[in-house]
């Protein structure tokens, strides 16, 4: 077991180094000069050169990368060249909102998808099923900024029920209701297309499970339909769903940018975009590293979840 863990850890490290190196070098290759960002357009060349030296930009890219890597290994992720805040600090302010957005979005998506998929699969080809299918396709095809705009317009401006921006977000522990009020529309925007994906996945798998012998036997045993769907059918049909959820968590960090932007959420996505645009080596690379680690961690968690959902995998081991 420990050898197994060590192996995984080694792979993770290799992956992190590869991905962050690519990111660092790519950033270095982009035009633009962080010293100019800092000093403004009016700085004279001597001042710029001095600033570059101060920022360490005069060294070769590999040296700078290795230095960042060495510091990162000690959990010192450097400072933002532009705002001169520590990257760790920037991340700690940006992370909670993004994590909350993702968690709420995923939760909401699952909560929408599971009952709908169950209803749809119960009467395949029926009115509910066809309605859900077409609805899912539509939800998949709406550009998220259009959706965001209209949700804000309807629930914020017309009805006045919910805030359209996330501003001075209260902590979910201290003021859960206030927090939820602000995060609701962004989460819905994120959840709608996700739910569509999940519905389609789950419906297919449910239909496959429904024709399994043990489901037929459960019917033959006189168990109620609701009991059969929830107790016997749902769990064995959810492995693909679990995979999709896990993969999305990783992919969404980048994908949530538009939503963060539209609801003025101070999140990792926005931070990533601005740090790439501004050639913030440390910030961008740290975020990329964080995302890589998340992907790997999430994959590991999925493996564990698989085992929970489907005990057959537990046995097979890794």
């Amino acid at each position: 077991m420990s050898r197994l863990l060590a192996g995984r850890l080694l792979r993770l490290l290799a992956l992190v180094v590869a991905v962050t190196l690519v990111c660092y070098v790519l950033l270095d290759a982009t035009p633009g000069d962080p010293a100019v960002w800092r000093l403004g357009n009016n700085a004279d060349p001597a001042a710029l050169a001095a600033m570059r030296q101060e920022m360490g930009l005069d060294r070769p890219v590999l040296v700078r990368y290795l230095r960042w890597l060495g510091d990162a290994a000690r959990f010192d992720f450097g400072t933002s060249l532009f705002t001169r805040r520590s990257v760790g600090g920037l991340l700690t302010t940006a992370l909670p909102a993004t994590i909350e957005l993702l968690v709420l979005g995923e939760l909401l998506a699952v909560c929408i998808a599971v009952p709908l998929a169950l209803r749809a699969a119960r009467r395949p080809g029926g009115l509910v099923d066809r309605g859900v299918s077409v609805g899912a396709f539509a939800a998949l095809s709406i550009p998220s900024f259009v959706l965001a705009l209209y949700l804000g317009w309807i629930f914020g401006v017309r009805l006045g029920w919910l805030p359209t921006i996330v501003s001075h977000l209260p902590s979910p522990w201290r003021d859960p209701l206030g927090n939820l009020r602000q995060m609701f529309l962004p989460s819905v925007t994120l959840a709608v297309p996700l739910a569509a994906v999940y519905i389609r996945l789950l419906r297919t798998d449910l239909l496959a499970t429904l024709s399994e012998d043990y489901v037929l036997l459960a019917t033959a045993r006189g168990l109620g339909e609701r009991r059969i769907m929830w107790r016997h059918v749902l769990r064995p049909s959810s492995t693909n769903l679990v995979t999709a959820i896990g993969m999305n968590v990783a992919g969404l960090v980048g994908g949530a940018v538009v939503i963060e932007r539209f609801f003025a959420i101070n999140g990792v996505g926005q931070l990533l975009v601005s740090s790439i645009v501004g050639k913030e080596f440390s910030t961008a690379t740290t975020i990329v590293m964080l995302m890589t680690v998340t992907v790997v961690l999430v994959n590991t968690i999925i493996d564990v979840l698989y085992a929970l959902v489907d005990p057959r995998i537990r046995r097979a081991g890794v």
Partner: protein
Amino acid sequence: MHGTSARTRRGIQLAAALLIGVPALTAGATAPPASAPGGSAPEPATCPHQGGTARFALDNDGTGFDTTGAIAPGSIRLITAMNDSLVAAIPGGGWKPLLAESITANPDATVWTITMRPGITFHDGAPVDGAAVAANLEAFRTGKVTAYAFTAVDHITATGPLTAEVHMNRPWGAFPYSLIGQAGWMVSPSTIGTNDRFVGVGPFMLESWTPGDSARLVRNPHYWRAGLPCLDAVEIKFIPDSTVRRQAFDAGDIDGFINPSVEDIVDLKGSPAAQVITGDGAAANEYLLLLNTTKAPLDDVNVRRALAMAIDRDLFIKNQEAGLTTKASSFIDLNSPFAVPTDYPDYDPAAAKQLIAAYVAAHGPINLEIKLEPNPSVRANVDLIASFWNDAGVDTTITEIGVGQSAITAISDNYQVFSWFQFSSIDPDGEYPFFHSGGGTNVLNWTNFVDPKIDEGFDLGRTSQDPAERTKGYTMVQQELASQVPILWIDHLNGVEAAVANPKLHGIGGIKALPDGSPALGMVSGSFFSWAGVWLDG
């Protein structure tokens, strides 16, 4: 931070910083905007209602609070809310000391003495004394980024508990104007150069700052002006997208915001649910096209004139700015006492075609490339301009510079035409660093245009304290710019640089009373203003 948004005008950062302040107004030349409260009488320095928290959206965050560094408009807006300058601008185009008790010069304007009011303290309790003033000004003079603006300053010394002397290396009559903005900001000496906190002297103190997201400012209980500020706190939220700002405003999530879209201004102006406060009559940026005059074909004044004549600025303003702006022919606002009529070439497509045809006959076809920052609304502007030029016989292409590419890199020599916003100076002297050729060595002279008459005019305006002399100098500058056309002027943006607030939020912009009861301008351009007198309905 650097994201583009639908309508963000990003000028040169430093220019905005230095030139913030009050425009020189000819009293009564332009009525203050109807929606701005206060009319022309100074608003008394008291609060009709005390307390409350205002929620306000800015379009972009700044870069921090280092007053000796390059400062983004977002930073200026925040600092303006938390700080007072040594000098304030007054209606009619003059200046008055604000934080300082007096500012006086020797006869040839080579030594300026600044005397502070007694008893003012910084947010951290340190006294604002002569030493603090000297330290701040010295830091500005030697700052990597700011030094160019103080090249005329030789040294600064604290001469008493409340006084400091600024010694020039050549006469500088317009010096106090430069103290209206960044150079006049006083911060606690121990924090000079600090970026992520701000310890100033103003009505509000920085409680928290989340870069790119928000800032929270709270009342300074020891503010030097009794009875101010009115609000308990100001919550600032940075929302880069104008659609989102408007939506949040309509939904009541914010009390006001800056930089509304042109369509928003048009439609909110008639709305009882909002007040639009524009910088009408104040010093605003100009939209313009920089021409690189060192390279063919733009080294030919006829080509430059032809390009100017090809542009129908009336149509441009009607379409792009909903008719809210005014045509420009130089960096000097039409309402400035220095403004004079010039013969800047106006729309004349036939003449433009002729001039172009003549040049083409002699030198071959003209191909021009307009560069711009990646921003959809700017792109629309350039699109329209390109269509005029194409009709005039100039083959025009448009190139966006990269998102991560700074404008300066793109602008330094390696360009033909650049789409640009700049020059919101209060006093023309503020533009000295950008127009004076310095014999062709000034890198800030974007167009690389060397013209002795322009240099002479600026020198005259700078050294003289005589208004007539200064007027003479700036008239020369304006006429030379109009005839040589190194820059294609489109419009003064006074009408579209604006703030929006709901009717409950009062005291944005308008004329403010100084401690001595005399009036001062409360709003500089449409989106820079002090929060000291802002109050909310109870």
